[in-house]
Each structure stands twice: as C-alpha cells, then as structure tokens.
C-alpha cells in the first residue's frame, strides 16, 4: 500500500497533528472524518432469555477503558457504510489493525 500524502498522515502515521487515517479493508486509507465511532468492540450483548441485571449493567455501562491497544468499532458512514473492527493504541493513536465486522460480502 502506498504511503498517504503528508497532509493525510495522522497521529497514527508518524505525521503531525492532523487526522486518524483508517485503512478500510474495502475503500483503502481514509480520514477519520468519513467514519463514525462505535465504541468498545469487546462488549457483547447478553442473551435476553438468560441474562440477569448485573450482566446488562456490565454490558451497558462498564468498560475496560485500557491505556494501550483497544478493540473498537468504526462505521464508514461516508464510504462503504460497513462496520469495522479497529485495533488502536489509545496511548499513541497508532492503528494496529482494521478488519470487517460480520460475514464477508459475496
């Protein structure tokens, strides 16, 4: 993959203070302004038939909030309109991985 032009390089790319550059698996490297943040990707919705109040509380409110690698959801709203699972270091903003969420499209 070619390196983004200097103006597009973000804090994740060794550049200055500009934007995050998220490498969408479908669209390529795009600026964060095309995306909407979806939060922590590690919380999973409990089974409504079995879950107790504590399980719902933990799902809705409680977060690991790590300083370091963080698995998170981003929605490519102004692009392919797919949800992505991004691994990003919250201490440096470096993006370590970016993968589709859900089944592969045909």
């Amino acid at each position, binding site marked *: 993959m070619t390196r983004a032009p200097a103006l597009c390089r*973000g*804090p994740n790319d060794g550049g200055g*203070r*500009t*934007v*995050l550059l998220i490498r969408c698996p479908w669209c390529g490297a795009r600026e*964060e*302004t095309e995306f909407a*943040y979806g*939060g*922590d990707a590690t919380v999973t919705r409990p089974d409504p038939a079995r879950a107790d*109040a*504590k399980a719902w*509380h*933990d799902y*809705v*409110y*409680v*977060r*690991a*909030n*790590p*300083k370091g690698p*963080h698995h*998170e959801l981003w929605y490519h709203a102004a692009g392919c309109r797919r949800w992505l699972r991004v691994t*990003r270091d*919250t*201490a*440096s*903003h470096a993006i370590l991985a970016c993968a589709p969420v859900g089944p592969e499209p045909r």
Partner: protein
Amino acid sequence: MRGYSIFSLARNALSGHRNWPAAWRSPEPQPAYDVVIVGGGGHGLATAYYLAKEHGITNVAVLEKGWLGGGNTGRNTTIVRSNYYLEPNAHFYEFSLKLWEGLSAELNYNVMFSQRGVLNLAHTPGELEAYQRRGNAMRLNGIDAVLLSREAIARAVPLLDCSDAARYPIVGGLLQPRGGTARHDAVAWGYARAADARGVDIIQNCEVTGIQREGGYVTGVETTRGPIAAKKIGICVAGHSGVLAAMAGLRLPIESHVLQAMVSEPVKPVLDTVVTSGAIHFYVSQSDKGELVMGGDLDGFNSYAQRGGLRIIEHVVEACLMLFPSFSRLRLLRTWGGIMDMTMDGSPIIAKLPLEGLYLNGGWCYGGFKATPGSGWVFAHTIAREQPHPLNADFTLERFAEGSMIDDKGAGAVPWAQ
C-alpha cells in the same frame, strides 16, 4: 506558613525578592500514612487540605507522578459555573461556587477568581425555552440565573454577531452572573501551600504503579519511589481513573476521551464574559493575559494521548468566527489536549469503591475544574467519616445498576455524547 500580605511584599522588596521561602516543602516519602491521595492536581490537593483542616487528619501524602497541576488542572479552560438543571449537580456545584467566592482569602493565595458571568447562547426559540426551564430550575435552587433577550446580549457583548444574517442567529440566552473564570495554576499552588502548612506531605515525581491489597482491604501503594503503606487511599487522577481502578482489579462505568482547547495570541481586553454555545459546540473567554481561550467538543474516541485531531480545531475556529467575525485576524497561538474521564451519565463519581479503604473522586467529564473546592470538601468528608457528605450522596458508583443516573444532558450511556 508565612502569610502573604502587603507587609511581606514590602519586606521582601527590600531584599530584592531574593528571600521568599518555598511555598511548600518537598519531603522524602514516609514509609506509611493514614491517607494517601493519588494525584497532585487541584482535586487531590484540595482533598488533602480539607482532610487536614476540617477533619484533623494530617498524616497525609499527596503523590503526583509529574509536577503539581501538570495534568488537567493546567489544561482546562478555567471556567467556573453552577448552571445545572438536576438537583444533585445544582446543589453540589453551587456549594463549590460559594467556596470559590471565598477561596483567595481562605488560602491566603490569589486564585484570581473573576465573576465575569457565563452566558449560554440560544439559537432557536426551542433552545431558548429549554434555557428558560433550566434558569427557572436554577432559581428555585437558589442559584442566580438571568434570561437575556437578543438586544440585551448585543449590548453586553458588542463584538458578537447578533444580526439576522448570522449563520446561527442569536435569539436570546441564559446568563449566570456569578459564574466566571479563575487562574488554574494558582488553585493548585494555593491548595498545595495551605495543605503543606497543615502538615501534608506533597511528593512530586512519584508515580503510583500498583495498589497493595490484603483480603478485602487496601494496605498501600507501589510507587516509582518505593512502596508506601496507607490505611486509606483516595484516587484523584481524572483521565487515568480507569488505570488506577484496574490496579485494584476494578472496572468503572468510565471511558477516557481527549478534549482539546486552544488560545489565540494575546490582545487588549475585548471580551469581559464567558460566551458559550451548546448548539455549535463552542465556548470562549479572554484570559487576564489577553489570549482568547477557546474550546469545543471531544474528539470522540477513546484516548490517553493528550492530543487530538485538526478537525476539532477547525470546528472550534469556524464556530468562533461565526459568532465573532472580528476575531478572524487573530492568530492561533497554542493548542493542547487533556484526557477526560467520561462517565456514562455525564456526572462524577465521588464515592467509596467496593474495596475497604479505597475511594474514588473521578468521572469529571468536562466539569472538573469548577468543582475543585467542592470536590475536595466532600471527598475529604467521605474519606474521613467513611460515609458520603449529603452533597455527594448521589454521586455513587452503584447508581448505574440502580437506575438512578444523574443525566443532566439525557444522552444515554454514550460517553462521547455527554
């Protein structure tokens, strides 16, 4: 403590200001304390001060990983206000504002508290009605609030674009006249000096790296300057609340996000109040140095990096120029970011944690600076008496499980929407 006064100023002027004593000691850490406060910002130092003054607990250490006030205390935009709708927030922040009003005299240190008013702009009739409702709630709670017409705002803030041609027309606003700004560094230094004078050990360059536990009790902290035993530990670390909680094996209803702020080059006085617009995510005031201090919204993703993206800076500057077209010739001098510990309802947590001897003062979202005196007061009470003060009784960790959130904004469990 030698008091600061006109006489001490004159005495020291005679010796060319070379003999001022240090404002606080820098002692080596003792092996054990009754209370260890983690975090030497305004909140931690205020807590230590009120522990000593109001509760007679002086065997206290404040541990700071960097220098005093080098975190969010030195990164905020210095606004003080109590214009909240819901009762727990209204009463707590109003108590804090009353402490601000006497703080310089209390600490014998000029915190430069300037009650220049905080004005919230309304851009639609619906927004103005919401402000009217909030203002009425504030007045019922004994807090000052004045609803202003567009004409009154145009007279009070002449540089504001109140014309019909404005991109976001101003239809009115809500003013809290007793709100204002203070000098943030002075708040940390004033509390540090006053706490030190009452025997509190303030230890800088001492990062807490672990929390020691035995059974269900905390017994001390591991630090970069060795272990320190403590009967009680108070966490006042703002954006790093989750990191400290994790050291004790706890998870919190908190996410850490970056919030940026910026200043223009300094100019002569042009703006004598704080102007905010919730609708376009912008606020501005002018510092005593003459810089326009501006801020906006969160960058909107989890971060501990103390820096954000250019798009937020652009947004803030655009919003500024829509409201104040004449500021367009100013240059931006400096921008920076601080880490907000965003709770799931937008209100803080000042409470005992589910581990004996461990207490949390955090989840301040955007509102930490103005809370500094009140937060220290009620957190000291909570630690000393082992039960909350009536003013922080609602700011529990359990309120999320109990469904008793204090959601002034009503945004739901989305930290970056608070």
